[in-house]
C-alpha cells in the first residue's frame, strides 16, 4: 500500500486541519502573552507524506540549520509535536520573551531553558486543546531541544525513514520581530487509523447531539 493524502477523506482532512487550527491558535495566543506582540498564523496544511518529504517541507524557504523544541505525546494516538524555527532566530525569540534589556551573554545563557519552556507552553497548549476537543486524554513527555536540518528533526536516517506519517503544520510569524517558524505535528501510520476513528466519533457526535435535541 502506498498511502497518500487520498487515504484521508475530504471531511477527515478538513476535521484534522480545523482541530489542529484550534490547537495552534490557542497556543499562539499563549505565545502572544509571552512575547507581548501579535503572532500571525497561516492556514493549516494536512498531508500524508514520508518523513523525508516532511523534512523537505520545513526546510523550504528556511535556512537548513533549524532548532526545534519537541515533545512526544501518547494516548489513543501517538506522535511528536515540534516548534521549529531557523537557528539564527532562536536568540531573537528568546530575547522577545525575556525582554530586550538583557545582554547577549544572558540571552545565550538563557537560550536552552527559555526555548524548552516556550516549547512546553506552546506545544502543551496546542495538544491540550486538541485532546479536549476530541474528549481524549494525552500524556506528554518533557520538552527536548534538537538542532540540525529537517532530516535530523524528523529522524529521516533512522529505521523509520521510508515510513509515511501524518504531517500537520502551520507557519507562525511574530509581527515586528524577525521571528518566524512552524508548529508541526507528526504521527505514524498506526496512529492515523486510531485518529480517523476518533475523528469519526467526533463527527457522529456532532450529528447526534443536534438530532437528539432538535425541535
Amino acid at each position, binding site marked *: 500500500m502506498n498511502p497518500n493524502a487520498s487515504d484521508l477523506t475530504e471531511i477527515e482532512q478538513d*476535521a484534522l486541519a480545523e482541530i489542529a487550527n484550534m490547537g495552534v491558535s490557542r497556543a499562539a495566543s499563549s505565545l502572544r502573552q509571552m512575547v507581548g506582540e501579535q503572532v500571525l498564523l497561516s492556514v493549516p496544511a494536512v498531508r500524508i507524506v514520508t518523513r523525508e518529504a516532511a523534512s523537505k517541507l520545513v526546510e523550504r524557504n528556511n535556512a537548513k540549520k533549524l532548532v526545534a523544541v519537541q515533545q512526544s505525546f501518547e494516548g489513543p494516538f501517538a506522535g511528536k509535536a515540534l516548534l521549529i524555527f531557523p537557528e539564527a532566530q532562536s536568540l531573537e525569540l528568546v530575547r522577545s520573551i525575556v525582554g530586550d534589556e538583557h545582554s547577549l551573554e544572558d540571552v545565550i545563557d538563557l537560550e536552552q531553558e527559555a526555548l524548552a519552556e516556550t516549547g512546553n507552553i506552546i506545544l502543551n497548549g496546542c495538544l491540550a486543546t486538541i485532546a479536549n476537543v476530541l474528549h481524549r486524554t494525552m500524556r506528554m513527555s518533557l520538552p527536548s531541544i534538537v538542532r540540525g536540518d529537517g532530516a535530523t528533526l524528523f529522524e529521516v536516517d533512522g529505521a523509520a525513514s521510508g515510513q509515511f506519517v501524518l504531517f500537520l503544520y502551520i507557519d507562525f510569524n511574530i509581527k515586528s520581530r524577525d521571528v518566524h517558524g512552524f508548529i508541526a505535528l507528526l504521527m505514524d501510520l498506526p496512529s492515523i487509523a486510531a485518529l480517523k476513528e476518533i475523528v469519526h466519533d467526533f463527527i457522529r457526535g*456532532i*450529528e447526534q447531539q443536534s438530532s437528539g435535541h432538535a425541535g
Partner: protein
Amino acid sequence: MNYKVLVVDDSKLARMVMASAFRRIRPDWSLIETPNADEALATVSKGAVDIALIDFNMPGTDGLELIANIRKSYPGMPVAVVSANVQDEIIGRARQLDAGFIAKPLTDEALEAFLSGAALRLRKGAK
C-alpha cells in the same frame, strides 16, 4: 422572530459544529453557510442576511477583512468573529469593527450570549 444567519468558515467541520449548536439553541433560525469571504460577500449583498458569524483564519481574505467589507454597506449588522485565536489584537480589531468575539472550541453558552444580544439589537433597530 426568526433570523437568517450567515456562517462563514473554510472548514466544513466548523460549519457542522455551528449548525449543530443552532439546532439546539435556535432551531427555527435559518443558516446560510459559505466557505470563503467572496461567497459571503455575494450572499450579504443580496440583502438576505440578518446576522453573520465569521471565522478569522481563512485562505484568501481573512474574517476581519471580510467584516470591514460588510461594514461598508451594513454598519449595524450584528457580526461576530469566531476563532480560537484569542490574541488581544484579534479581539481588539473585532471590537473596532463593532463585532463580537466567540472563542473556538465553540460552546452553546458563548453562542447563546451573542445571539441574544444580536436579536435584541435587531429588534431595537426595527422599531
